[in-house]
């Protein structure tokens, strides 16, 4: 929007080959034309994933939640791990589009659309998991406070109920924010589309004409929603972390959880943005718009949050030792050297050790290296939640009740399938909405000068 950049800054954020506003329109809207083989291949895989996801889920509903590997004492496992993972992924979208917008970080322009889409779809994925893990999913609506003749209300003291509110609120706001940001671009797409597509865009664009007045209102609304979404970025994952922190399970009950989870969420979210944009850039030839500068900025954000997360790990272990509480100490000792040592060390290596490489500029500027690192972080962050949930529950107060949880194939199927579900939506998104914000990209281009270029403003 109103980002004012000098010429030097602008030049750094787009490739010098991008010369005109018209070229931006053409380059980006080209993505929306006929899909290539690559897209179809990816889409088929995603559809298979969706199939796996629902097959497993339906099988679980018919047979019983016992098809999971869950047991006593580990009542939560892969499902809640994956829930927290996707909620965490959902974070960086709003962070990039709202917080970085408010802080006027110009490098967000190229990636924020993809990141926002990722947010919406990640919340859509995450939101299914609390339902999936219910013993009686058909009664899941009892968590919603609806008026009923028996005056039965949910328990407002339960963090799970807070979850319901936090996740639904976050979904609503990010969806609205996402939609609002796409309106000018949809209008641009409408102007080039034909047939049914055009009709669709006409509806979605709500008659956007690009008048000054419209831009003015748009800007106001955008700032307002950005300001509204910003606290949610912090609150959602804080609330999710309270699912754990509010309990008395050793390894869960810690005051550091809210900031720790928020940092972790941004960490994993930005890594996911890299994981998504690297292929996007390659497949759709967006090298001119997603430059090394963007990736460099994201890598720095990852480095920062990685350090925060590592600090949180250290402080957890330190506090367990420092507290002198035997049960807490035993739990953390078990976390490092017990039955689940491999998960803990995977987490520490992926989230603490590997991102250290990002101190080097050469690595930050190597797209393949960043892509690989981002994959490790995704794995590491999934394991972080697994470690928190499973190791804590398996080694609680009563030694005689300790036990080991092993995920079942159905759980793994649903976990893997959830990626299919996520990519299913994301791939559709890349076909129908410009995955890079056209209007905002233009803000970072040099102002067109009358007569100096052949083409004018679109």
């Amino acid at each position, binding site marked *: 929007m109103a980002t004012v950049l000098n010429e030097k800054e602008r030049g750094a954020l787009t490739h010098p080959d991008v010369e005109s506003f018209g070229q931006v329109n053409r380059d980006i809207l080209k993505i929306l034309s006929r899909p290539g083989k690559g897209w179809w291949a990816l889409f088929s895989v995603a559809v298979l994933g969706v199939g796996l996801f629902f097959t497993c889920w339906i099988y679980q509903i018919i*047979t*019983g*939640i*016992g098809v999971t*590997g*869950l*047991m*006593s*004492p*580990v*009542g*939560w496992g892969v499902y809640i791990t994956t829930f927290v993972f996707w909620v965490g992924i959902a974070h960086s979208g709003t962070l990039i589009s709202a917080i970085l917008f408010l802080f006027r970080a110009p490098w967000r322009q190229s990636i924020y659309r993809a990141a926002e889409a990722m947010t919406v779809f990640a919340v859509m994925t995450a939101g299914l998991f*609390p339902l999936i*893990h*219910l*013993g*009686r999913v058909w*009664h*899941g609506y*009892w*968590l919603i406070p609806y008026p009923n003749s028996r005056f*039965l*209300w*949910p*328990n407002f*003291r*339960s*963090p*799970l*109920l807070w979850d*319901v509110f936090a996740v639904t609120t976050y979904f609503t706001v990010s969806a609205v924010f996402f939609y609002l940001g796409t309106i000018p671009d949809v209008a641009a797409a409408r102007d080039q589309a034909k047939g049914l597509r055009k009709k669709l865009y006409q509806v979605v664009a709500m008659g956007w004409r690009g008048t000054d007045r419209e831009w003015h209102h748009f800007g106001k609304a955008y700032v307002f929603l950005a300001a509204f979404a910003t606290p949610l970025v912090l609150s959602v994952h804080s609330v999710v972390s309270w*699912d754990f922190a*509010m*309990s*008395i*399970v050793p390894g869960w009950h810690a005051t550091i959880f809210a900031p720790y989870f928020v940092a972790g969420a941004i960490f994993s979210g930005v890594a996911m943005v890299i994981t998504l944009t690297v292929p996007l850039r390659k497949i759709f030839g967006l090298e001119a718009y997603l430059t090394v500068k963007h990736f460099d900025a994201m890598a720095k954000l990852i480095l920062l949050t990685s350090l925060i997360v590592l600090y949180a790990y250290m402080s957890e272990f330190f506090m367990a030792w420092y507290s002198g*509480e*035997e*049960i807490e100490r*035993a739990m953390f000792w078990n976390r490092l050297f017990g039955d689940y040592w491999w998960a803990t060390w995977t987490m520490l290596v992926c989230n603490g050790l590997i991102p250290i490489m990002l101190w080097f500029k050469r690595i930050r500027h190597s797209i393949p290296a960043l892509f690989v690192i981002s994959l490790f972080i995704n794995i590491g962050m999934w394991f972080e939640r697994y470690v928190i949930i499973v190791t804590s*529950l398996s080694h*609680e*107060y*009563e*030694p*005689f*009740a*300790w*036990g*080991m*949880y092993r995920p079942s194939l159905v759980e793994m199927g649903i976990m893997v399938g959830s990626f299919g579900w996520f990519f299913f939506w994301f791939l559709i998104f890349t076909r129908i909405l410009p995955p890079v914000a056209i209007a905002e990209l233009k803000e970072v281009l040099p102002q067109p000068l009358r007569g100096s270029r052949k083409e004018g403003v679109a």
Partner: protein
Amino acid sequence: MTDGIKRRDFLKVVGAGGAGATMFGCSTERVEKLLPYVIPDEETVPGVSTWYTSVCGECPAGCGVWVRTREGRVVKVEGNPDHPISEGTLCSRGYSAVQGLYNPDRLSSPLVRGADGFSPIGWDEAEDLLARRLDEGDNHLFLAGRMGPSLTNLVEDFLSGVGGVRREYEGLSEAPLREATRIAFGRARIPTFDFAQARLVYSFGADFLETWLSPVEHHRGFSQMAGVDDHGSKGRMVFLAPRLSLTGQNADEWVPLKPGSEAVVALAMAHVIVQEGGDAGPYYQRLLENYDPRSVEEASGLPAEEIEALARQFVEDTPSLAVGPGVAGHHRNATAANLSVHILNFVAGNIGRTVRLQEADRAAPAHPYGELASAISAMSDAGVVMVHGTNPAYSLPVGAGFGQAFASAGFRVSFASEMDETAELCDLILPDRHPLEAWGDSNPRPSLYALQQPAMQPVSTFESKQVGDVLLSVALRTGNDFGAPTFFDYLQREWQLHQSRLAPGRAFDEFWRETLRKGVVVSPDAFPEGPISLRSPDAILSFDVPDLDGDGEFALIVYPSPRFGDGRHANRPWLQELPDPVSKVTWHSWVEVHPAAAERLEVRTGDLVSVRSPHGEVEVPVWTYPGIREDTVALAMGGGHESFGRYAQGMGVNAMDLLPAEVEQPSGALVHLATRVDLVPTGSRRPLATIEGSSDQHNRPIAPAVGLPVLGPVEAGSQEESHDEGAHGELKEIQAMGGFAPVATEGKPEDFPLEGSRYGQYDPEENPRWAMSIDLDKCTGCSICVTACQSENNVPWVGEEQVAMGRDMHWIRLERYYETVDASHPGPLDVRFLPMICQHCGNAPCEPVCPVYAAYHTPEGLNAQVYNRCVGTRYCANNCPYKVRVFNWFGFTEMAKPGDEPSVAPAEPMNWGFNPDVTVRSSGVMEKCSFCVHRIREAQNRARVEGQRPLEDGEVIPACQQACPAQAITFGDIRDSHSRVAQATQNERGYRVLDEHINTQPAVTYLKKVTFHEVDSGEH
């Protein structure tokens, strides 16, 4: 049961019910659909239980039972409080009788063998067939287990009519004990043992809390002896055996004798006692001279000083009592070993005090295997062989040759109600009724007579007929008339004879009804002990450590299973899934190996090994156990059924396969401790379905103990008080500001209701606060409460695979922690038991986290679980520090449908046994101990009906308390400061698990175990 418990109204119904039962049994016709009564049965009030007295038929011990029926169906059995043997409790096997009655594997009709296997046959035809075969042949044989006196008489009458003999065989026969008693005192009988009177018990391997003779009776006596009393004194037990059974785990000291060395150790102790002034009579005096403690050091592996100290202790702490060895210790010199124990008791002056010869145990099986062995060798000459109540094809070693011999008999008939291994070999099967639907009697002591009456009409799914009725009917067909058309008439005739002695001058009808109502008659005759002297033996005996077959690395102990006995209870899912009290393993068999030996063999728990004796081989997973000598391994009986039903078949291994069919002389018992074995790792694994997480407390205050020396009036610990005050003050401050903060409490009666507790619209002043105390000094870890709870609360079983995953559903987890268990030398033993149930926390962590209020706090202080409201987030279970919440991962109570693959799911008619007062839970909901809330309501309703009177203390009895033979559990209203539970809470041994750590304010107060040795710290 103690004085506080009054169930007069039950007795009233029982009386009416009993009288009615003589005429019509009880009331159900074949109910197929739910139909209202057109003309209601007078006895059956819908929603109200009718109780019948009877005799437990699960083992021969002869416990009295109360059978609870609802709408004409048996739903539970409990111990008869008026019966001197059971005094209100039963064992797990007894509580599982309901699953015997409704077992889906019971035969639905008589079966006859044709060319292509068994086919159903009508009762008339079947009886005709049997009568014909009896007429055709002669020299018949009737193989039977221990039966009641009237049935025994009938069988004898029958056999004298048709020409044949009866041979008794029970897998767990105490023949050596009877023979030793005959040799020593001239009385061929099983003595009774008074554990309650003893101050010191030496058990030479007798597992008297599990299977030995009369476990329920011993249990109660033992807990009276071993529980610390108000004066801070308690009795001691020393366990002298190579392996710790559950009984052994309850000892205060373990002397891990070499297998088979009981006799020499007992004699060496007697030697010391005699030297220091005891009298054993001239013959034994001479014998004992050979058993100087020094001379037996080698044989027993026990230092002489140790033996001397034990001997001196034995005469110092009188009355003392030595018992054993049990069936597991029946080696080639078992009679001599029993005799040695008798001598030890005699020189210590225990005979007539703690060992009673007059009030003998008549119910205990004591028939020698030798008699059966000779019958087996003569079987080819037998006309008809009838088998009732025993399963020799399973419970005898292969070497006994029962299978071949049985095949050579003329005609084979089984009265088994389920297709067991022996029935499978028969030509004709005439399924007997379950004891709960049949008439019978018992005479477990010379002075005790009890009646077994049917508590319901026979389960209509099965066309069964009581064996007595079959015999009478067949007898008529063979031309023998005993003047009684049915066994009921025969029984009454027998009891007319009893009446002339037990209650002369009374009308028989009145006597009969009175007996049915009470369940038991105690003879007015006295049985004075009189002077008893030791006789010189009239048989050749060797007291030496016997040789074991083969040269394997380990001696093999084959012991009776606390769950299955000799194997007859293996087809009951409750018992299969009951964690073995020692190993905590369910469903499968295991071989117990000392951890050091396992390390040597490079195996760990769950590794399959091949156990090889000179007589056979079995493949079974290892379970490492520090409670067994390094040179010994052990296997339980009761597993490895090849037939018998869906729950037993293929579960575990049959330990008898490793034993020779050898007869001990002179008693004729089967030798159980006979062989050495080698363990050969197979390289594969078969993980065991255990409920045990860690057997180490990891220094946590879960099951602390207190040393007897430090027990006593404790000075007011001012330091601790002030510390607590500070914490309380802070919490109060938070509350004053309107914050929600837990209320700390010491659990004193006046603390309730807790300040700031939320009671909603209820008035806490009106309501009790239910609480429980469990005395861990009395708890023996027997796990009977687990089965009783399962029966009471419709707790499902889940099968081996699910237990292995950690999904067992029991509402009571009997935790077992090892503190000091050392097989390498004698010394203090410390094993802690703790029944972990829902603690009904005053400040329950499970309640605030439930998003739908399925877990909530009732105004009576109960932590309730609303099954219908539960959506299954499992957050409550995660947040429960005691891990007592169990989840229905599948619909475990859904019935198996005909045509389903064989599974462990409940099958018709097992659903008949569900308690109608308790909801059956569906898939996806959480459940847990409810403090038997339905029993609370029942008592409250009764009090209300009886003129709005207040509940008396002790009127509400949860199922676990009812079942606890050690009487470790007390339940009541803690707000009534006079209640026993409130007083127990004030006991100086009282503590609440983890309360100091997490301020959960449990309603369950545990009383610390008391040890003779010092415990490390205040906490432990």
